[in-house]
Every structure is written in C-alpha cells, then in structure tokens.
C-alpha cells in the first residue's frame, strides 16, 4: 500500500558521476515534487511537475534534470555530482494542497 515510493533509499557515489533517483506514487495525484533536505535539516523545493509538465524550477543547477514519463512517476537525474549535492532528497505528490512524502533518498557524494 505504499503511497509514494523512492529508490534507492541510500546512494553513495564518487564526485563526477551521474546518478538517478526514482519516484513513483500510486495515489492518482496530478502533481509531484522534489525537495532537498540539507545536513541542517532545511527542506527546500527543487521542482514541481503537474501532469508531466514542469511548473516550478527553484533555481536548481542544470546538472539536475527531472523527468516525468507519466504522471505517476517523477525521476531525478543528476549529472557530474558534486560534494555539495550530498543531502536527503524527498519526492512528494499532491492532488489538493496536502502533500504526501516519500521516505527519502540519502545521497552521499565522496
């Protein structure tokens, strides 16, 4: 009965690599999001997609490219990973103003 799922849960990689995080929601929601939580627990929106269309991009570097193959999926691809990309990334979805969050993906860049 998982509502919003993310894979992988943990990701450890070297600087300069390219990696992807996947997100899927089975709630039938139209809107999906990616948030970044830094080491001080501060949560910040990165992207928002509505019906596969990008509606918010909060000045995230071009190395981050979200892809929404259908409205149930919003994947996050990151090129040329940097140390500062280490964080927990949360996917979320919503139909109205209540957002449902996934369990998070902890990315560690070495």
């Amino acid at each position, binding site marked *: 009965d998982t509502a919003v799922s993310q894979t992988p849960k943990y990701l450890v990689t070297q600087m300069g690599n390219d990696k992807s995080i996947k997100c899927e929601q089975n709630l039938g929601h*139209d809107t999906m*999001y990616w948030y970044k939580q830094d080491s001080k627990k501060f949560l910040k*929106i990165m992207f*928002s997609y509505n019906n596969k269309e990008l*509606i918010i991009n909060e000045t995230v570097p071009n190395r981050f490219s979200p892809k929404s193959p259908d409205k149930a999926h919003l994947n996050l691809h990151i090129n040329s990973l940097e140390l500062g990309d280490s964080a927990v990334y949360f996917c979320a979805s*919503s139909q109205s103003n*209540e957002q*449902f969050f996934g369990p998070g993906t902890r990315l560690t860049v070495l």
Partner: protein
Amino acid sequence: AQSVTQPDIHITVSEGASLELRCNYSYGATPYLFWYVQSPGQGLQLLLKYFSGDTLVQGIKGFEAEFKRSQSSFNLRKPSVHWSDAAEYFCAVGPLRAGNMLTFGGGTRLMVKP
C-alpha cells in the same frame, strides 16, 4: 514572498510534560498551514493542517495546533509528551492554489527526557 520561522532549533521536555512548538509565518494572503513530523531516518508524516474554519485543529498522535491570524502563528501543542514523540518537527505554509510548493520552516528538534 512566503516564509516560515521556527524560533526554537532544539527543545527538551520531560516525558509527560506539555509541549508547545512555535511557528510564525509570513504570507500575503490566507495561507494553508501544516505541521509535519520526521522521525530519525524517516520521511515526513503529516500531523495536521489548517485550511479554514475552526482555528484550533486536531491532528494525529494527540497533537493540536492553533491558527492565530493576528500573530501570524500556528503553534503546535501536545498536553502530555511520550518518549516516542522525539523527532524533528516542521511547520510549512502553502498557497491556496493546488499543486504549488510548500515553504518549510527550519525545523525544531524535540528531545524527550525520561
């Protein structure tokens, strides 16, 4: 621009004591307000939300929050804290339009003493 402030970074209370976590927001219109809880290593779980109507809202796990427009506040309360309440608590504000982003406060870490 909308913003959320949680003035207390850490709070420690004794088990069984009452709790109040503060949240102040800045928003140009009537906001939607939320409290989320994040247990260690876990995702975010919604505790309660305020959209309109009664300014005292009840949530899960015995939590409640009161919306005070005059003070731009949405403080979270619990009459008797349990050890399992130890977690990080986030206040968030969102616009009226569906599908838009939430702005989160910096979080308050709650520690519970036996």
